[in-house]
């Protein structure tokens, strides 16, 4: 059965199954979960909420996937969201039009990303330390821009990006979907994805074989900054204000979790964008399910941690190999060149790290 599936689809099959199971659980706690209706010219329902509310984590996960593929990590994305949201809000509050505000915010995100990339690639600082700097300082920068208040705005164009809808679908969903598809095409239809993976496996070896590894590393951090900027604009537009204290708070952890649930190893060298996006949707489905369930808020984090623990246990190499052995006769031949088998030791390390990350 497995052999008949497209290799790319087969790779994200565990994530898809997880998503379906989580959605199934949501139906159990809230029977109307799949109900969708038209209201005010847009689709309205819990599923739509998941696609909409999952936008920030999905966007962050796109950038984070590429960064993690180079064996890096970007802890600063939450703070970059706050900075870029503040830049966009300050720009429209100062009388700029939407296009200028968005371009300024995106540029701010790219600058933040370039700074991270510079620290990692040029100064050779470990990514977790290098990006920690901006994670801590970034909110201060955002506070300076908003002057310590929630900077509200009434610019309809900017608000549209956060709470508007196109073809009955919420804008944030269309933005992350478009961003994801575009990134996937760019990295998978060119050699870029392969080069990123090469850098993640062995920077020195790939540099010696003619890959400009450092440029690639700076580029992935810049893309991560760009993703964070987009997420920051959406979050600010959604509440018609830039909240420097709370925008994107702890979302870097959710983004890393999304990437990990999606099946990308934290040790780099191999990534799946589709998996990360599904990972983001799994996390948001859990969040939305908890909200709909009506349990007291004291249980929110425990429920979330428990579900994620179960997901990670099912994904762990030992459980996987048991399931694999039960399902597959030994004649399974690997019909694609993906380094799946060699990845088991790496996966085990990765899952050990994952568990520490479940919030």
């Amino acid at each position: 059965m497995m052999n008949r599936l497209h290799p790319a689809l087969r790779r994200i099959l565990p994530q898809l199954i997880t998503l379906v199971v989580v959605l199934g659980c949501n139906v159990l706690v809230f029977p109307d979960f799949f109900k969708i209706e038209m209201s005010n010219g847009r689709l309205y329902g819990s599923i739509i909420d998941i696609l909409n509310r999952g936008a920030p984590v999905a966007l962050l996960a796109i950038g984070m996937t590429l960064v993690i593929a180079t064996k890096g990590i970007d802890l600063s994305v939450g703070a970059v969201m706050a900075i870029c949201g503040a830049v966009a809000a300050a720009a429209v509050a100062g009388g700029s039009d939407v296009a200028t505000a968005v371009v300024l915010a995106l540029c701010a995100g790219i600058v933040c990303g370039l700074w991270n990339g510079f620290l990692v690639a040029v100064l050779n600082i470990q990514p977790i330390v290098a990006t920690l700097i901006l994670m801590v300082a970034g909110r201060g920068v955002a506070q300076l821009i908003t002057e310590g208040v929630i900077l509200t705005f009434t610019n309809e164009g900017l608000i549209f990006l956060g709470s508007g809808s196109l073809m009955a679908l919420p804008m944030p969903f269309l933005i992350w979907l478009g961003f994801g598809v575009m990134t996937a095409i760019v990295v998978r239809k060119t050699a870029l994805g392969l080069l990123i993976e090469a850098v993640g496996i062995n920077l020195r070896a790939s540099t010696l074989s003619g890959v400009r590894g450092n440029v690639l590393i700076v580029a992935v951090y810049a893309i991560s900054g760009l993703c964070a900027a987009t997420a920051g604009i959406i979050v600010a537009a959604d509440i018609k204000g830039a909240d420097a204290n709370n925008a994107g708070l702890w979302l870097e952890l959710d983004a890393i979790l999304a990437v990990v649930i999606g099946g990308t190893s934290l040790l780099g060298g191999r990534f799946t964008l589709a998996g990360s996006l599904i990972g983001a949707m799994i996390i948001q489905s859990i969040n939305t399910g908890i909200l709909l369930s009506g349990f007291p808020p004291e249980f929110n984090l425990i429920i979330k941690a428990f579900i994620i623990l179960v997901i990670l246990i099912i994904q762990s190499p030992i459980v996987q190999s048991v399931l694999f052995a039960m399902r597959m006769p030994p004649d399974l031949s690997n019909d694609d060149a993906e380094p799946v088998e060699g990845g088991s030791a790496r996966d085990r390390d990765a899952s050990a790290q994952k568990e520490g990350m479940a919030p």
Partner: protein
Amino acid sequence: MISILEENMFLKLTLAGAALLASVALPATAVNAQTIGFSQIGSESGWRAAETTLTRQQAKDRGIDLKFADAQQKQENQIKALRSFIAQGVDAILLAPVVATGWDQVLEEAKEAEIPVILLDRTVDAPDSLYMTAVTSDLVHEGRVAGEWLAAEVAGKDCKIVELQGTTGSSPAIDRKNGFEQGIADHSNLSIIRSQTGDFTRTKGKEVMESFLKAENGGKDICALYAHNDDMAVGAIQAIKEAGLKPGSDILVVSIDAVPDIFLAMAAGEANATVELTPNMAGPAFDVLEAFAKDGTLPPKWIQTESRLYTAADDPMAVYELKKSLGY
């Protein structure tokens, strides 16, 4: 003899000041010209900025020479500021403590120097003999005011309430929840059907309200929203509007804090009531100091600030402009 002299130093100084001022016939409000030190936490929120502005304003109106120290969220800076106030021999110290513990030593020093200390907005874990009084709001009372308003507003009709709680486990969330429950306890027609945390933020307030609306028949079953702070209410109002309902009429909105943006919503008819957490903590403190300077009246150890209820009848736009000017 000496100790009596010392004890009366403060009183005598002010009396001397009063006599001097009276002799040059200044307005009566300036009678107690004093130097007062104010150690503020920092500028962590709009509310605190407003507290600072109001303290300065109040000091100016009363002819008080206010020495202001911004601690930038650090206790060590506050202790330093207090020591410097003591060294300068100020007449009194206002302290908005950043944390509750670790104040005994420096408060002892102030006591030895006979400088009364008044705590603003938060209290400390120290014997209450070490400070004159604490001026704070009663969080439970705030919730009760909100609950009582809602009970009066629906006037006996059945009303299902959804509640947006503050950060789980934080004292404002616990107290404002309890207070509201006390406020509606005598009215069996009011019931809280859903309660979930919105972490005091607009984003979470909006997201959680979206789920409430889905879960309660598109919001048709919800009669009122109670939010533990205005920011969550502002987020929730957007969610209600996007669901095609009218906040303020289809779903009544009551919240706490009275930040400027809720008055904009109120002016637009989208919010109904808010309970003020007043940034004017210094006013009552200065009153106490004046009374003490005049005839040595000692205040009670806790002074509760007024939790005023604002509704659409209070000219929300005027209040908005006023609040904005305070630096919120």
